[in-house]
């Protein structure tokens, strides 16, 4: 096994963090000869989060310097794993194959003389990009472990939430004049073809008086006709009130009664049933 990396386990923070679990037991190092119990392979491969994770594992468990990776043995070992996966008919993620291709490419470039970029510059190392990615990933992997170790509300701590006495007043929707106007305009827009649903400002005050008169007559009260008009409203107000009374009579909502000629006029709600007798 010329190609395998040194397999002496090295306890690094990364390794302690990246514990694979096999049957509940932490797996800190893989068998030296890469022999894996057949039914364990799947479990083990699931423990790796992808090709970078697998590569990091291979590097970190040996004592090689990540900044000076011996590409040949690493590539060989990586390919051995991938081959194992393939032989087990595991669905081989494209990510693993892509990484295999990248490793082979780096390895072959290592064999070639390095092109000088500039006269004095260091030659470009074909491994630089891989190392950058490995370190980048390892850093995030460690960060994940640390975040997980922090106390989480809901897991390690609970929020305090004391019951509030009495029901809080229910918030009711606000309606602005603008809302009302818009709503009405929408209705008018839809009803526009019918034309008869137009409303004028002056008509509105008549309608307000209609409601007011009906309120006063509520409960079957008989009100003297002249009391329907409030002189304080002025002439215009009285006229509008009168129009309201006429409208109500016309719509047969109220009745004006008179017991005999020249007797006082009374207004009351039209009610064919109760007051019939």
């Amino acid at each position: 096994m010329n190609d395998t990396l040194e397999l002496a386990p090295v306890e690094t923070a990364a390794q302690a963090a990246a514990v694979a679990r096999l049957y509940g037991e932490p797996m800190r190092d893989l068998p030296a000869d890469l022999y894996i119990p057949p039914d364990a392979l799947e479990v083990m491969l699931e423990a790796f989060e992808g090709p970078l994770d697998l590569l990091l594992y291979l590097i970190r468990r040996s004592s090689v310097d990540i900044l000076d990776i011996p590409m040949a043995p690493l590539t060989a070992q990586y390919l051995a794993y991938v081959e194992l996966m393939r032989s087990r008919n595991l669905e081989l993620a494209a990510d693993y194959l892509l990484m295999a291709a990248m490793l082979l490419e780096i390895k072959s470039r290592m064999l070639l003389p390095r092109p000088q970029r500039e006269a004095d510059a260091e030659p470009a190392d074909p491994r630089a990009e891989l190392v950058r990615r490995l370190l980048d990933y390892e850093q995030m992997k460690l960060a994940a472990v640390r975040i997980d170790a922090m106390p989480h509300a809901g897991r390690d701590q609970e929020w305090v939430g004391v019951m509030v006495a009495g029901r809080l007043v229910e918030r009711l929707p606000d309606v602005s004049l603008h809302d009302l106007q818009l709503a009405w305009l929408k209705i008018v827009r839809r009803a526009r073809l019918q034309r008869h649903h137009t409303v004028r400002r002056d008509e509105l005050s008549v309608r307000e008086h209609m409601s007011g008169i009906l309120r006063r007559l509520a409960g079957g009260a008989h009100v003297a006709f002249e009391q329907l008009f409030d002189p304080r409203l002025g002439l215009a107000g009285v006229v509008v009130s009168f129009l309201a009374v006429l409208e109500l009579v016309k719509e047969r909502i109220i009745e004006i009664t008179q017991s005999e000629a020249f007797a006082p006029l009374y207004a009351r709600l039209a009610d064919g049933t109760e007051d019939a007798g």
Partner: protein
Amino acid sequence: MEPKTPDECRRILEVALLAASEPLAVGRLRRMFEVDPGAETIRRLLDELRIEWEGRGVELVQLASGWRFRTRPEFQPYLERLKEERPPKYSRAVLETLAIIAYRQPVTRGDIEDIRGVAVSPGVLRALESRGWIDVVGHRETPGRPELLATTRRFLDDLGLRSLAELPALTELERIMDLVDDQEIPQPAPPADEAHG
């Protein structure tokens, strides 16, 4: 590590009750301890805890389904002011019904349905009635004697109006809309939800 002293037990009960989102019965509180202190002990500790909290803004109370910490009513006004959730919005059906009652009162439900072109669900009128914005002011003497609806003084107060005449005049806008409609949108399709069933 199980607690040994009653003090420690009481502290655990306090934490559990402060964090609980529902009342906790004695039986459930007992289950927290590996060595069951017994219902009697729990009850005694709860009572001690209740006394310990007396005179503070929050009190420990025994409710039908168990024990719970609860704010005292006198702090209610402060808690109310803390609430800053956005008020809910009325549906289009409610707003349009309100607009019709405001501008066309007194109207029957049938009138509203004629104008809107759709049935008025009972919920719509109930929402406006329970708000105190509309009420029944009489009946129209037609078959069925339908109720006549009108807006209330409270409606005017809540909208800051002295009288209905102060409702925004619409004629100008309507005219503009008519122009717009005639020229640009010759045949406005009625919104889907408003279509007759």
